[in-house]
């Protein structure tokens, strides 16, 4: 085969498209279309498409994500659903409503629910006492029990007004209890669905009756949560039913008035209220009526307005202060939901609470506590959720004057630590912050035996973490607070409190103060390995420090920081902390660094992460670890001190040998280092730099074999070979490429990609094509034969066990032809500065050209053989397309003046068109191309060819 001579320069000029410059910053096909309509934009709209949050989303600057402007479509949907479009009302009206309604800044009950359930637990046995009409199957033990008991139960049965029997479930564990309540919730829904309204009401009444029982008092807050859930369900069911009764002919608008409700619905609603009013016991009557508060809307306009104060007063009849305070909390909660504008009742609730506050320390409570063996401080904390909630409702958007008044009234009461705590918790943080010094004074005055002081300081710290006290007071505040905190004896209490105050310290002070705080924490948590029980808090301390200290040189210069890290001795926790540190480092470190303090510390951190990898580690976990470590390696730069950088890479390789992506990154880093050296030396290496780049090549050469992924090995061999070649390390380059060729047979036929087994053929073909194009510039080794590497590659391709029935091998042969054609040119398409390619080595020696031609002939022969077999196997379609690609190859690279070649090309064309499987459009365009080419002076012979090529029409 003869390849035609090419003049690459002129060809490029003649066939190059017009260059249209593309502004990257303006346009990218993946970028989302952003409409910025300045007129209609409202401040309230959150998460519009133009919001940019790219800084927080990606670990490393990624070109794709920066193009996307930080909003990937998924998170955009999420943001869109989070922000509901505001109703189109006139602005002024909206604002007025805003004041009445509950905004997003009001922490909802649902977020407190879980917290309460998790916090107030018990190991003691609970009991449920129910009168249920429906429960069948009485306890069978009755028959055998003593007569007196039998009589008693019978009498009880007679007393019972319900048609069912009393059931007392004793000895329930907490979980059983919760399950029971859930069952009741279910049976409520079932009863409702099967139209047994009376049964539903009975269930609700029995449930709310449980709230008057304060046995196992530690569990009471959780019990409250569980039972109010049922009440909520009931309230919703009744409301919806009555609402649906009015939906004829069309549903009621949301802002309906009582006049629009029809008589039947009103009558039903009234019936409910009459039924509730006749409930004998106070607490069920109260709770059920509160649950149905919203239904008052159906009856009269001001029904809710009149009912809430009455219910508020009714709570006074509850003697037990804990039961009363939770009843108030429930009323406040429903009140806030149904009629947020009724602030007065909320305030009345709070003042009533203050009025009965002395009950908490009364005799009957004390007796109960002795009986249940509950300590006063524990008992007092049971109040917190309810009082927090009441105060949160009261103080929500309340004027400053009201808050001050409430403060004053709390102050006047004795034993007010409990209230103080809730005030600090629920009032606006700014309000607390400006009076922080006063609060510290008040906390100090509190009785030691009552509410625990560390909780008070914790609440204060929480407020100060969100709002800033006056500048001058900050240091005294910290000193005063820490004086108390450091005296807390129980490590758990201590760390709970200290953790909160770390935020305040980080926010306002320098590393010196933070360091002091850290050392104090270490001192408290080390004895008896107390830190083992406090990992979440300690982790939170680290997180807070990381939020405020982004400069890692400052961070690591804190003496106590690393000793603090040493307290994390449980592996999983330790790795978690390391992860968060690296995360922050990658996000906030802008400049590459060579600071030995940072490097040492972070290398240690990364090593910890790396060492956590074991056989059980999940792929995803490994990937995220590797990503973080890679981010760190990318941030290390010793500037011009290349040797130091290389030795860092050596150390890093030793440290991170288990994470393959890190090794890959290191090889890339070292390759980059070699190229950087080349850039600095402007292409001509001195003896010293030449030795250095060889060292780099050696590094890559010995690192690559340790990778398990075959394709990363292949690609890295090729890449490193190219780098070596660029740096004039010919023998190293040879070694890389040879290694790549020798690895080829190891490529498995299928590889697993993202957990799925895929054929490796496509990847292999890609790689071989890439490899072939690199071979053009690789000079032949003087001792090896001509085209040693090309032959070697082709031999490997020949021997490789390709998939049965696949044309891949032939594709490789066809794609080797252009390489050989390019090699036979006088001057090559590309070359590497200061490296003599074969063009100069052989200088167009006819023997060399003959060798190439021989090789080409062999290849074409192989391809033709294959075409023949395809003809036999009746895979005509494949035959046609293969013939066509060989034709294209010959047309582009072969010298068609040669008769034999000319004939072959025409035969191939005919073969590919014989069965009519070819794409007509491609054929037409090919013909047009030939026509176009034929107009060039030295290509006239093509017009002859053109005559002989016939286009077979499909029909």
């Amino acid at each position: 085969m003869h390849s035609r001579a090419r003049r690459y320069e002129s060809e490029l000029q003649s066939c190059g498209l017009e260059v249209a410059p593309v502004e990257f910053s303006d346009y990218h096909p993946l970028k989302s279309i952003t409409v910025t309509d300045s007129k209609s934009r409202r401040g309230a709209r959150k998460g519009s498409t133009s919001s940019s949050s790219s800084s927080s989303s990606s670990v490393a600057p990624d070109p794709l994500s920066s193009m996307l402007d930080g909003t990937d479509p998924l998170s955009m949907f999420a943001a869109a659903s989070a922000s509901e479009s505001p109703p189109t009302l006139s602005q002024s009206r909206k604002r007025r409503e805003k004041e009445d309604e509950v905004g997003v800044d009001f922490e909802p009950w649902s977020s407190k629910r879980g917290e309460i359930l998790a916090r107030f637990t018990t190991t003691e046995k609970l009991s449920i006492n129910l009168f249920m009409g429906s429960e069948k199957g009485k306890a069978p033990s009755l028959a055998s029990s003593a007569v007196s008991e039998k009589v008693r139960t019978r009498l009880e049965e007679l007393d019972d007004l319900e048609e069912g029997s009393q059931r007392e479930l004793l000895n329930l564990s907490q979980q059983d209890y919760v399950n029971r309540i859930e069952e009741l919730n279910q049976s409520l829904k079932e009863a409702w669905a099967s139209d047994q309204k009376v049964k539903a009401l009975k269930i609700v009444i029995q449930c709310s009756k449980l709230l008057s029982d304060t046995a196992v008092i530690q569990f009471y807050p959780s019990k409250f949560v569980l039972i109010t859930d049922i009440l909520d369900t009931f309230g919703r069911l009744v409301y919806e039913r009555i609402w649906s009764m009015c939906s004829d002919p069309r549903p009621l608008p949301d802002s309906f008035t009582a006049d629009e409700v029809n008589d039947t619905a009103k009558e039903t609603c009234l019936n409910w209220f009459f039924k509730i009013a006749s409930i004998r016991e106070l607490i069920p009557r109260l709770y059920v009526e509160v649950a149905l508060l919203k239904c008052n809307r159906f009856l009269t306009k001001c029904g809710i307005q009149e009912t809430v104060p009455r219910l508020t007063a009714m709570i006074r009849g509850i003697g037990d202060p804990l039961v009363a305070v939770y009843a108030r909390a429930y009323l406040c909660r429903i009140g806030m939901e149904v009629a947020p504008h009724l602030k007065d009742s909320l305030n009345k609730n709070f003042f009533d609470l203050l009025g009965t506050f002395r009950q908490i320390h009364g005799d009957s409570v004390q007796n109960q506590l002795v009986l249940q063996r509950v300590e006063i401080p524990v008992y007092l904390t049971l109040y917190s959720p309810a009082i927090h909630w009441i105060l949160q409702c009261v103080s929500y958007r309340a004027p400053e004057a009201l808050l001050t008044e409430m403060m004053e009234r709390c102050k006047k009461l004795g034993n007010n630590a409990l209230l103080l705590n809730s005030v600090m918790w629920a009032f606006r943080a700014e309000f607390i912050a400006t009076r922080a010094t006063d609060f510290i004074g008040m906390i100090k005055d509190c009785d030691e035996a009552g509410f625990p002081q560390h909780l008070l300081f914790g609440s204060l710290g929480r407020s100060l973490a969100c709002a800033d006290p006056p500048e001058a007071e900050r240091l005294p505040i910290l000193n005063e607070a820490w004086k108390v905190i450091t005296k807390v004896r129980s490590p758990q209490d201590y760390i709970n409190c200290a953790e909160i105050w770390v935020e305040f310290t980080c926010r306002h002070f320098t590393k010196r103060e933070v360091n002091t705080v850290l050392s104090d924490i270490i001192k408290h948590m080390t004895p008896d390995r107390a830190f083992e029980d406090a990992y979440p808090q300690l982790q939170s301390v680290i997180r807070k420090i990381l939020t405020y200290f982004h400069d890692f040189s400052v961070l690591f210069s804190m003496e106590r920081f690393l000793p603090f890290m040493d307290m994390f001795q449980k592996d999983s926790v330790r790795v978690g902390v390391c992860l968060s540190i690296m995360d922050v480092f990658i996000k906030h470190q802008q400049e590459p660094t060579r600071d030995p303090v940072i490097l040492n510390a972070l290398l240690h951190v990364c090593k910890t992460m790396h060492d956590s990898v074991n056989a059980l580690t999940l792929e995803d976990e490994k990937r995220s670890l590797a990503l973080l470590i890679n981010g760190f390696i990318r941030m290390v730069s010793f500037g011009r001190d290349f040797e130091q950088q290389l030795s860092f890479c050596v150390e890093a390789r030793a440290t991170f040998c288990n994470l393959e992506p890190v090794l890959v990154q290191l090889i890339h880093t070292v390759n980059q280092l070699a190229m950087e050296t080349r850039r600095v030396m402007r292409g001509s290496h001195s003896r010293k730099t030449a030795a250095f780049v060889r060292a780099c090549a050696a590094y890559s050469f010995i690192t690559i074999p340790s990778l398990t992924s075959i394709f990363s090995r292949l690609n890295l061999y090729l890449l490193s070979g190219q780098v070596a070649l660029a740096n004039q390390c010919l023998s190293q380059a040879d070694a890389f490429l040879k290694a790549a060729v020798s690895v080829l047979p190891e490529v498995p036929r299928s590889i697993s990609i993202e957990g799925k087994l895929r054929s490796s053929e496509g990847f292999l073909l890609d790689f071989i094509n890439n490899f072939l194009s690199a071979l053009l510039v690789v000079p032949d080794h003087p001792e090896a034969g001509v085209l040693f590497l090309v032959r070697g590659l082709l031999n490997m391709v020949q021997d490789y066990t390709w998939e049965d029935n696949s044309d891949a091998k032939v594709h490789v042969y066809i794609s080797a032809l252009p390489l050989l054609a390019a090699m036979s040119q006088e001057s090559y398409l590309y070359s590497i500065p200061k490296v003599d390619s074969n063009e100069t080595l052989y200088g167009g020696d006819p023997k060399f050209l003959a060798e190439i031609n021989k090789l080409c002939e062999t290849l074409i022969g192989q391809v033709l053989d294959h075409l023949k077999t395809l003809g036999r196997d009746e895979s005509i379609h494949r035959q046609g397309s293969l013939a066509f690609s060989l034709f294209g190859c010959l047309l582009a690279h072969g010298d068609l003046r040669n008769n034999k070649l000319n004939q072959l090309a025409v035969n191939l064309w005919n073969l590919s068109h014989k069965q009519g499987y070819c794409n007509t459009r491609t054929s037409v365009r090919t013909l047009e191309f030939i026509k176009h080419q034929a107009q060039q002076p030295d290509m006239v012979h093509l017009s002859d060819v053109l005559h002989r090529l016939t286009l077979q029409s499909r029909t």
Partner: protein
Amino acid sequence: MSASLDIRLKRANKVYHEGEVLAGVVAIVSKEAVQHQGITLTMEGIVNLQLSSKSVGVFEAFYNSVKPIQLITSNIEVVKQGKVPGGKTEIPFEFPLHTKGNKVLYETYHGVFVNIQYTLRCDMKRSLLAKDLSKTCEFMVHCLPQKAKLQPTPVDFTITPETLQNVRERSLLPKFLIRGHLDATNCVITKPLTGELVVESSDVAIKSIELQLVRVETCGCAEGYARDATEIQNIQIAEGDVCHSLPIPIYMVFPRLFTCPTLETINFKVGEFTCNKYKSNSATVCGLPMADRCDSLFLCRV
């Protein structure tokens, strides 16, 4: 062959006053046509009196049951003998609520010994082979609002061990003092009973404070009058050891049907609703609750 008969009144709450018109429809639902011998409607208002066994003895109570007093009765034939077509048929009707002579329509009341009830009954007579169909429906009558203006008459009360009735050993009782007031003893039946109560002092912890509504019914018969008091409802207004010297609201909604405006006629009397306050102590000698009888209430409708 299943046909169903139903009476539907126009008013959802089924409340009517004397002089008004009781209107509604008789609804017949059936798959096929129904053959019948006439559909009639009967409206009736009856006072049933019963003597309590306590006041007159068991046998007398059984035999001497007083004759029911008929207040109003009316009968019309809605449809003559014929056929009602299949599907849903609605036949409207109207009854004027007028009494004959000097009879008055008393307010509907369901008591123990006195029952005032108004019913509407629809009968469909059918041939011998098929069963007659019948449907009864109760409707309420409220007496006409009272003309005179009602003056609220607040009453104060005090409960101490000394004021308690039927207590044998007064000296054994713990000391306590409860004050309070009712906003009115002349109550409007549709409005709740309200008031306040303050526990001024108590030696022992209070368990519960309850409010009891009691009715007094008097029946006249040959032997004289029988007067009985029974509980209507009992409402707890305080549970547990309530805060001292803090006013606790008294609030009770009068239940419908079981209460009516105080009524006095020749044969029977319903009224003198009274309200009792209970106070239970944890440490009473025999553990019996202590009750204090309080003021009789006069109910009316305005």
